[in-house]
């Protein structure tokens, strides 16, 4: 693997970070705009998501129909999402269409119309997104878990709340946009086939005169309840468990990441083996390390029939606790093999890479090449991971269940 990553910080603070992938015919981009739902006022939860929805309804010289049509005529596959810190606008297309696509996105993040006459339609869209969660208990349990585990506002679901969405006005959306969509803190990741100098000049031309002052992050408040059950008329009980971990920029991050990989990665991982393969308790069980800039946690999920849910919770918690006793060298070898091939395969997708570049920059103020990540993974040792686990044993769990009846959390786990 040999890669080079280019980066440039424009005078207004906008960062462009880009990696050429010459074997590909495509190019992909990810804008991280620092306007995530952590900025939603307490009585206007969902405002960031609502603003994102409205920003897609026409920008610059295009009304909403021309906006969609012009992107589609460039073959752009687009996606938007809202996290605590960012609104993400991303797209992928054939390499030759990258620069015109970026020009349309420059209008989107700088000159959206936020049209008042489309507010009712936009409101119906975000309200439906909220309603859909109520029909999807597996998604709901993980949203509610994050809400309780992280300090407010860092765990709140981006979809917001019904009353706030119903009361939001177009002026509030416009104020939210004007206050938060700004160059300082915005990161544009690009990956695929492109010429760096031309890209840098093009982005400079599109964004160089964009103004806006930096804004600090909201302070972290209280966390939620340690144990919650939400009644739901379903066959299965959804179980969500969270415990604290370290964020991406922490020196111990890769130790923490490695330990979660042993817990849940391939089908030989501990949770899959003990909960599903040996006992047949559930179809879906996993754990993943979720990282924000200043905090992180491990999120575990299992979904199973109500009458087997207590046993599933007990076995899952036992595996989380057993992790504190350390991992085996063969587990680490398998983990390294899996990560190594995943890194190489990341070079086959411009979309995956553009997102990773932008997120790396947000967390570290630089982007790591796949070679560098490979070296960090090579340096992982059992001793290092076990020392981390001994000092940071999984404990102090947050538990959320969604289903017909509540479960008992063993006292020692609380």
């Amino acid at each position: 693997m040999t890669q080079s990553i280019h980066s440039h910080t424009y005078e207004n603070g906008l960062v462009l970070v880009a990696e050429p992938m010459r074997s590909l015919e495509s190019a992909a981009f990810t804008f991280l705009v620092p306007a995530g739902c952590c900025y939603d006022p307490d009585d206007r939860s969902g405002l960031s998501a609502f603003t994102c929805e409205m920003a897609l309804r026409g920008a610059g010289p295009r009304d909403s129909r021309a906006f969609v049509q012009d992107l589609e005529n460039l073959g752009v596959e687009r996606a938007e999402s809202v996290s605590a810190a960012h609104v993400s606008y991303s797209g992928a297309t054939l390499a030759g269409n990258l620069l015109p696509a970026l020009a349309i996105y420059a209008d989107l993040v700088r000159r959206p119309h936020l049209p008042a006459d489309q507010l009712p339609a936009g409101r119906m869209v975000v309200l439906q997104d909220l309603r859909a969660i109520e029909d999807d208990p597996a998604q709901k349990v993980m949203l509610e878990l994050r809400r309780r585990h992280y300090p407010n506002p860092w765990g709140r679901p981006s979809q917001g709340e019904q009353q706030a969405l119903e009361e939001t006005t177009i002026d509030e959306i416009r104020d939210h946009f004007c206050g938060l969509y700004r160059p300082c803190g915005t990161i544009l990741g690009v990956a695929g086939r492109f010429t760096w100098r031309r890209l840098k000049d093009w982005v400079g031309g599109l964004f160089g005169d964009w103004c806006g002052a930096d804004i600090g992050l909201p302070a972290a408040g209280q966390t939620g309840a340690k144990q919650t059950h939400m009644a739901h008329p379903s066959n299965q009980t959804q179980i969500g468990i969270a415990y604290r971990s370290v964020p991406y920029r922490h020196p111990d991050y890769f130790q923490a990441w490695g330990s979660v990989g042993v817990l849940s990665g391939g089908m030989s991982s501990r949770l899959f083996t003990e909960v599903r393969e040996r006992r047949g308790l559930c179809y879906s069980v996993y754990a993943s390390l979720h990282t924000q800039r200043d905090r992180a946690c491990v999120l575990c999920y299992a979904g199973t029939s109500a009458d087997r849910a207590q046993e599933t919770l007990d076995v899952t918690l036992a595996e989380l606790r057993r992790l504190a006793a350390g991992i085996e060298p063969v587990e680490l070898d398998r983990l390294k093999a899996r990560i190594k091939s995943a890194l190489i395969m990341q070079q086959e997708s411009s979309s995956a890479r553009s997102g990773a570049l932008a997120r790396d920059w947000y967390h570290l103020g630089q982007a790591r090449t796949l070679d560098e990540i490979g070296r960090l993974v090579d340096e992982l040792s059992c001793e290092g991971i076990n020392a981390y686990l001994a000092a940071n044993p999984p404990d102090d769990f947050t538990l959320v269940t969604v289903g017909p009846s509540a479960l008992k959390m063993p006292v020692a786990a609380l």
Partner: protein
Amino acid sequence: MEFLRHTLENGLEGVAERNAEAHSLGLGFFVQAGSRDETDALAGVSHFLEHMVFKGTATRTADDVNREFDDMGAHYNAFTTEENTVYYAAVLPECQPRCLDLLADILRPSLRQEDFDTEKQVIIEEIRMYEDQPPFGADDQCKATHFGSHPLSRSVLGTVASITNLPADEMRAYFAHRYSPANMVLAAAGRVDFDQLAEQAERVCGGWPRTAAHRRLPAADPHSSFDVIHRPSANQQYALQLMNGPAAEDDDRFAAKLLATIIGDDSGSRFYWELVDTGLAEQANLGHYEYQGAGVYMAYLSCEPQQAASNLQCIANIYRQVEREGVRAEELAQAQTKVKARVVLSSERPRNRLFSVGGNWISQREYRSVRADLAAVDAVTVDAVQRVLAKYPLSINTTLAIGPQARIARPQ
């Protein structure tokens, strides 16, 4: 890109699309065994068998299988459809021999009773999981209603009752019959060493016994009905529609896919502008799905319960209008650009090419390059779309709604 092919004496065919530029390769066995090959007593056996294939062989335990895939850093899985069961792995080129050795070995599974009993619980959990998620099993019910006595009416997962009552011996007999080398394809895509693959396949698969596995390919009759299932605990209303369309071997399938893109793509389609952009529906889309000897369009709607009737009427109006007036040239051009970009973007990953190469070969014994697919999309005309619409009208459909509304007026 280079297409390569090798056939073993027992009938197993190996096919590959070699791409020297790729970083990895995808490797997979495509078995012609799906729910359409089942009977009532065997409902769900193809999918259950897919799980059991990972449970060990004469020389490997289930733990060995999982561990060895993970040891080589493979991205691996399996899936079952109405037509095929597919086992695949994406690995780095140096792992090709180990990967084929393991994949070939698990394709001769032990099917032990104890593993069968444990895995039965996992399958039942999977069925219950889908019953808890939208559209709460209505997709299977809509398919059953639409296809009637046709084999494609069958559920891939089966039911809790059919899985509970399935004996292990029946699965073993099904395996012996369907997993004949002549009824499967070994496919590869990406940076593959094909000489090595063919030579190794001779060694590790050459001894597999050949049996005669047949598949019925009756014609599927069009069907029209409108039903509502009352589910008071749901928040949103959901509706599914199935209507006949071109089959996998029909050249008209490209026109059908472009029509579905124009009418019901997730973005920029007629459904999008009428229903999604306006906030009247959370989702409204239409896709074309092809099978051997039959094809369908499937429409999916989710929306607030009180909007369901008017949204379904709006969809019916869109169908009637396009049947009457056809599609516009600029709509077709936009759909062609969109579909071609998707083909190119997805083909960058060898594992995606694997599904195309293996899927086309098991279904049609045909190799289609990315270039051929792009040319076929480009060749579709407004007239061709109109012809497909005349042959397979969207307005003749099987509709099934589920949600809090007990009754919904049938669209006029």
